[in-house]
C-alpha cells in the first residue's frame, strides 16, 4: 500500500434538513480495492458524487491524489475515472466515436486514443459493435463501454457505483478480475455495491455506511469479527445494519 490516494475529511452533505452523509472520514491507499456497503438510501451514491465533484459537500472536503475536488477540480479529474450505476451515454454516437470523444476531453493524443481505444474495445468485447450507435446497445454493452472509456486516460483512481447491473455472469467475472488486476498495478478502486459476495471476495477493505454515518471500516475479517454471530459477509452486514433492506 502507498500514500493516501482518496481522503475525505469530515465529509458532510445535507439536502435541506435531511442529513444524507455525516462527517465521513476516510483514507484509501493507492492500489487498494475499497468496497463501500450500505442499505438503500444510506448515503453511498451521495458520497460517491461528492468524491467525483458531481455534488458539493455541505462541510468537509474530498482529496483525490492530494487535490481537493472543489478547489482543484481539473487536476483531480485528470486522475479519476467514474462508472455510474446507470450509464447514460450519448445515444446518437457510436461506441468508437464515444471513445474518441472521451479521449479528446482528456487531451489524449489522437494516435494513442485510437490505439488504446481499440485495445480497450477489444478487452471489453465491444470491437465488433464499435460502429453501432449506442442507442442500439444493451444495458450490459453500455456498462462495458462506460468501463472501456473510463480506463482510456489511465486513471489512478476509479470510482464505481454498483457496476454489476446488466452484466452477465461471464462479464461480472471479467470486470471483477480486471479491476483486481489493475489494483495490483497501483490503481485505487472505490466501489459501491450491494453484491456482498463479490465484495467479500475482492475487497481489501470495506466501509459500511448507514443513515449517512460511516459505521464500520476494516478488512473483511475485521468486519466479520464485529458481528455477534459471525457468518458470511451478508449475514454480518444484515446484523450490523439491523435488518434494513440491502
Amino acid at each position: 500500500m502507498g500514500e493516501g490516494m482518496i481522503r475525505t475529511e469530515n465529509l458532510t452533505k445535507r439536502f435541506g434538513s435531511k442529513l444524507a452523509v455525516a462527517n465521513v472520514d476516510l483514507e484509501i491507499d493507492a492500489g487498494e480495492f475499497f468496497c463501500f456497503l450500505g442499505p438503500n438510501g444510506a448515503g453511498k451514491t451521495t458520497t460517491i458524487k461528492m468524491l467525483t465533484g458531481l455534488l458539493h459537500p455541505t462541510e468537509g472536503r474530498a482529496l483525490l491524489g492530494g487535490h481537493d475536488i472543489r478547489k482543484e477540480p481539473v487536476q483531480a479529474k485528470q486522475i479519476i475515472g467514474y462508472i455510474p450505476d446507470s450509464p447514460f451515454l450519448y445515444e446518437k454516437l457510436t461506441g468508437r466515436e464515444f471513445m474518441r470523444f472521451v479521449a479528446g476531453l482528456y487531451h489524449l493524443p489522437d494516435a494513442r486514443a485510437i490505439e488504446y481505444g481499440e485495445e480497450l474495445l477489444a478487452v471489453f468485447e465491444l470491437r465488433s459493435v464499435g460502429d453501432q450507435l449506442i442507442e442500439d446497445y444493451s444495458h450490459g454493452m453500455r456498462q462495458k463501454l462506460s468501463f472501456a472509456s473510463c480506463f482510456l486516460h489511465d486513471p489512478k483512481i476509479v470510482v464505481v457505483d454498483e457496476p454489476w447491473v446488466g452484466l452477465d455472469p461471464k462479464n461480472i467475472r471479467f470486470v471483477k478480475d480486471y479491476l483486481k488486476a489493475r489494483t495490483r498495478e497501483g490503481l485505487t478502486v472505490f466501489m459501491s455495491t450491494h453484491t456482498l459476495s463479490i465484495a467479500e471476495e475482492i475487497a481489501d477493505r470495506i466501509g459500511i455506511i448507514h443513515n449517512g454515518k460511516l459505521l464500520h471500516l476494516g478488512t473483511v475479517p475485521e468486519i466479520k469479527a464485529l458481528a455477534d454471530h459471525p457468518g458470511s459477509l451478508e449475514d454480518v452486514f444484515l446484523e450490523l445494519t439491523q435488518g434494513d433492506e440491502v
Partner: protein
Amino acid sequence: MSELAAVARAKLQIAKHSIASVRTESKLKVGVISFCAGGMWVGAFFLFKEGLEFLIRFGADVSGSGRGIGSIVLTRMAGVLTLAVFFMLIFSNILVSFSTLYRSREVAYLLHTPMSFRTFFIARFVECVAFSSWALAYLGSPLVLAYGYATGAPLIFYGATLAFFVPYIALPAAIGSLITLVLARVFPRLRMSTIVLVGILGVLLLFLYWRQSVGVNRLSEDTFLPALLDMTSQTQSPLLPSYWTTRGVLAAAAGSYRECVFNFLLLISNALMALWVAAEAAQRIFYMGWSSLAGRERGRSKWLGRSPLAHLDGLLRALPNPERVLVIKDIRLFWRDATQWSQFVIFFGIMAVYIANLRNMSGHYQQDFWRSWVACLNIGACTLILATLTSRFVFPLVSLEGRRFWILGLAPLSFRRLVFQKFWLSVATTSAFTVGLAILSGSMLGLEPIYFALSVYSVIITNFGLSGLAVGLGTLYPNFQEDNPARIVSGMGGTLNFLLSVAYITLVVGAQTVILQWRVLGLYTSDTGFYVALAVVVVFITSLSIISTMIPLRLGLRNLNRMEF
C-alpha cells in the same frame, strides 16, 4: 376505471405536479416570463386590433358603404390563415406523433399493459394534439379576440370559436398521426431522416405549385382586390376543413346560427371520422410498424468510403481539444436526430420564401420613405429568423447534455470552456446563414450603401447577442430531465429566452428605424446630424449586444459551477 381513464388521470396528475413545481422556480424567472408572455399577448392583441380596424376602415373608404371590401378581404385572409395553419398542423403532427407513438420512453411501458392498440393510440393522440397546438391557442387567441372586438361580434362568436377550435386541431392531428402510422408500417426500413426529407420535399413542391398557380407577384399590381380574390379563391373550396371553420366562426359572428351549426357539425363529424380511422389503423398496423422499427438494421450513409460525419475530424483539426471533440459531438448528435435537422430545414424554407418574395418586392419601392422602411423591416426579418434559430436550436444545447452530464462533469474541463464552446459554435453556425441572408437580401433590395452596411453590421452583432442570450439562459435554466429539444424549448427557460430575444431585437431594430425614418422625414438639419445619430445608434446596439452576451453567459456559468448533478 378504464385504461384510457387511468392514463388520463396519470397525465392530469403529472400536469398538476408540473404546475405545482412552478412554486419552486425562481420567483424572478416566473415573474419575468409571466410579464413578458402577458405583454406579448396584449401587444399581439392591439397589433391585430389595429390591423383589423385598418382593414375595415379601408373597406369603408373605398366602397363608401361601411364594411364591403374590408369584410371580403378579412374573410379571404381568414381563409388563407386557417388553411395554412391546417397544413402546418398536419406536418407538425407527423413529426410529433412519430416521437410520441414510437420514440417516447413511455411507449414500451404502455405496450406491456393489457391495453388495446386503439386505446394506446387515443391516449397518446391527446398528448400529440396538446403538444402540437398549444402555441396556436396562445398566438391565435389575441387574433380572435381582436377580430371580435373590431367587428363588434356578439358573445356567441367567442363560444363558437372555442367550439370550432377543438375539432379544427383534432382533424389535422388525426391526419398527421395516420400518415405516420402508414409510413412506419409501409416503410419501416426507411430511415426516419429519409422519410422526413421526402416529407419536406413534398411540402416544398406543394409550395412551389401554389406559388406558381396563384402568382404572388400579382399582389403588386394595381388591381389589388381582383388579384387577391383570384389568388385566394382556392382557399374557399367547400371541401376544405379550414373553409368550414372560417365560415362557421364568421357565421356565428354575423348571427347566422344555422350556417354556424351546419359547418360545426361538418367539421366535428369529419374530425371524429378521421380519429376513428386513425385509431382503427393503429389497432391494425401500429404494432407491426413499431416492432419493425425496433428490429430494423441500422446502417449509416457513407461518403468516400466513410460516414460523412467522419470527415468532421479532419475538417476541424485546427481546433484544440476538448473544444474539437465537443463541437464534433454536438454536430453529430444534431445531424443524427431527424426531428432536429428537419426543423432546421424548415427554417431554410422560410428563408427561401423570404428571398423569393424579395424578388417581387424590390422593384416596387422607389420612394425613400418605403425604401427606408423596407431596409428596417429587412433587418427585423433577418434578426427574427436568427432569434428563432437561437431559441430553437441553441438554447437546448446545454440541457441536451441531460443525464449524460456526468461525462462532462467528470472530465478535466472547466465549465467556462464548455459554455464558451457552445457560444462560439452558435455564433459560427448561425452567422453562416444569417449574415449571408442579410447580404443577399440587402443586395436584392438594392439598399443604399449606408443602409446595407447597417443591416449587415446589425445581423453580425445580433449573432453575438442572441447566441449569448440563448447559451447563457440555456445554462442558467437547463432542463436535464428532458431529451426532446422541442420540449426543452417550450419550458419556462426557453420561453424567457425567446421573449428576451424578441425584446432585444426590438430595441436593435427600433433604434435604427427611428434614425432612418427621421432622415426620410427630413428631421436632421444636416448630414452631420444624421451621421452623429447613426454613430450613437451603432454604439447603442453594440453596447446592448455586449450586455446581452456577457450577462447571461456569466449568470449561466455561475449557475453551472454551483450546480449539483
